[in-house]
């Protein structure tokens, strides 16, 4: 069967970038960026997630079906979060009881 075997060099590079990003996200946390702290932290985490998924989990070689299914996880996560936030974060706006 057609198995993709990535080089040790590729894996080492990904590993070192992941370690560097961990250092960056920790360092940046001490700088006052206000509300952007969360944004930066989540952006770095998302990049790390993509690196792990694409390289370590071989996502870039996976079958299309697997790729679509995995991406689908984020659709359901989005639905769950968006609907909950749409409730919780708007309760004060329209002056209704509930808090």
């Amino acid at each position: 069967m057609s198995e993709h075997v990535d080089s040790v060099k590729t894996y080492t590079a990904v590993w070192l970038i992941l370690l560097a990003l961990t250092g960056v996200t920790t360092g940046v946390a001490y700088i006052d960026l206000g509300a952007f702290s969360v944004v930066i932290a989540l952006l770095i985490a998302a990049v790390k997630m993509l690196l792990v998924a694409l390289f370590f989990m071989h996502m870039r070689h996976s079958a299309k079906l697997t790729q679509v299914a995995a991406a689908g996880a984020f659709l359901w996560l989005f639905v769950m979060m968006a609907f909950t936030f749409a409730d919780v974060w708007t309760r004060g706006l329209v002056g209704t009881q509930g808090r």
Partner: protein
Amino acid sequence: MSEHVHAPVETLALREQFNTAEQQKESVTFGMWIFLITEVMFFGGLFLAYTVYRSTYPVVFGVASTSLNAVIGALNTAVLLCSSFTMVLAVRSAQLGRRRALVLFLILTLLLGMAFLGVKAYEWNEKFVEHHVPGAGFHFEGAAEQGPAQLFFSLYFAMTGLHALHMVVGAGILCWLLYHAVRGRFTAEYMTPVDVAGLYWHFVDIIWIFLFPLLYLIDRHMR
């Protein structure tokens, strides 16, 4: 691939419900991904609860979050990333049919996973010493409101605890893989268990990649 001609070593591990080894491998891999997607929703619920309560009690959550040790958290993140690196090398060794390297990298992954859990145990112990464990003895000096502070530490223990539980399960899977790897059960043609165990291990790593900044880092700048 022809449906009638298999290399002998392929048929050895081929279950009867599959036509080809390739079809079997794709089915198993897809099954693991479906399981991981349910896990995304499982952890997602906790991330959701954390976000809702953090936005409800931003100040107390900020103070409670900064009481965690970010340096230890970062070092433990590095340990876990190293374990993912050794795991991917174990999968690669299996792909190439290198049995000794496979055993070596599985042992390294197991040791790094144990190291992560050891550091986690040390951190949890600190919480007990500091009375930061939710319950009757809870006391958090940094906040006037003890309720929201307990809520933060409840979520902290639930999220890191559930993650650690996944690590323990992962360690069990690694032991199972080691048992069979030592006996030479995995070959370049059949190493699907190593492959899907790798998917699981990396997924648990990804969960920590999000837990670390959300629990340890995002309110650090307010200090």
